């Protein structure tokens, strides 16, 4: 079964995506802040990471930089999900190695599922 690590500090959004991905048959682990995410990525070895941007403590872009700087995690595809619709954030995220960045309020959960399936298929997983 494909494993997703979701790094998301908002419980409303976290519960929504956790439910959707479980209904879709994925294994999903939820890290509630950036540091928690960096810890969990080592123990769980996810196939893909869903990453929020605006978070207390380590923000998403900092987490992304650390993931990409670490050879063991650099190869895991990261999908950035944010509600800050600022072209600069999207650009920064892709420059830092995210596969794509999506605005949560503009996307149905189905759209996020579709995106994740597409990325995993491309990565041959």
């Amino acid at each position, binding site marked *: 079964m494909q494993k997703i690590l979701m790094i998301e500090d908002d419980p*409303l959004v976290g519960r*929504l995506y956790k439910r*959707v991905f479980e209904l879709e048959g994925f294994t999903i682990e939820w890290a509630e802040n950036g540091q928690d995410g960096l810890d969990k990525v080592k123990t769980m070895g996810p196939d893909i990471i869903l990453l929020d941007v605006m978070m207390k403590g380590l923000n998403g872009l900092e987490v992304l930089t650390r993931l990409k700087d670490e050879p063991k995690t650099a190869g895991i595809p990261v999908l950035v999900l*944010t*509600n*800050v619709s600022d*072209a600069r954030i999207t650009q920064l995220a892709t420059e830092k190695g995210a596969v794509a960045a999506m605005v*949560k*309020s503009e996307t149905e*959960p189905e759209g996020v599922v579709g995106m994740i399936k597409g990325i995993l298929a491309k990565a041959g997983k």
Partner: protein
Amino acid sequence: MGMREEQGLEKRIRELEATVKLRTEQLIASTSRAYSFLDSLHMGFIMCDVNPEVVLTNTSVRGFLSDEARGEWTLAEIDQLLEPSLHLKELVTQSLKEQRSMELNEVNLGKRVLRLFIAPMVNNEAKGDVQPIGAVILVEDVTEKTVLERSKDEFFFIASHELRTPLTAIRGNASVMKKYYPDVMKDQNLSAMVDDIHTSSMRLIELVNDFLDVSALEQGKIQMNPEAFKLDDVVTEVLRELQSLGDAKSLKLVAGPGLGGTPAVLADRKRVKQVVYNLLGNAIKFTDGGGITVDAQAEGKFAHCTVTDTGSGMSEENQKLLFRKFQQAGSSLLSRDTTTGTGLGLYISKLIVELSGGKIGLEHSEVGKGSTFGFTLPVA
């Protein structure tokens, strides 16, 4: 020399001395008036000679530069206090040489943010080839203004995030209920309520987006990314996306014959799509029968795109109200049609088109027959 002549000469000398004294007093008075004038200005003032070197500074600028009283500054000393990338002396030299004024926004000096204005001084009474006799630098302290501006930026950044997050959860959960719980959704009332929750969240998201767009566009905070593209492609995309709305009202949506032949335009593709989406969306909203045609043609250095509908049209009185913030033509505050959007669409479109170097307007409208809206964009 006779007695009389000598007396006459002495008298003349006394008169001259008196005049010199008077003129000197007048000169001192006017100079000190000029100094007090300069010192009473809130704006900093630096006068330079042609070398260029500082000749005179006023109290305000000395206050900006240092908390302690000291002798006259040199340009090199002032340069050292300013941010390293800025070379004030070189800029003044350039201003003198090219005889043009220049403006520098957001110059950092310690904790202060300054705006500088450098201008060559010319003696207007000199004749022939007029050379500057020096330069003035006006210095404005814009620290407070800048801090306020930055906090406004942060406000919108945070507001957009905080408003969208709960809306995402409402929209997402409603849509998950519809998709993954078909058994429960068999109850028609429940299903209709979930639909309404979903629609409401979408409307709120749209509203938040419009509000944020307006404030960002008004403040010039939206970065336009111009690229060359064919209007044809954008129109086709929008027609496809709005097809279902058109179908729901049995309207015929048509791409006109001129579209394909129009040269590529230079603008922000995403933003232009927003404009086309808005004009076509409006046309669908206000048309109950017939159809809508989107067409374009080249007009000199511009491409001219039109959206023509067979809708309700507008009276001349109501036409004047278009393109204003929150305005739907003809709507009084209490009789607004709140189901059709924020009334910000045309206003946003206008801001986008104008920022792209084009024009937008209502080109023709007749009550009961329909309207044509159009905009222009520079060709690539």
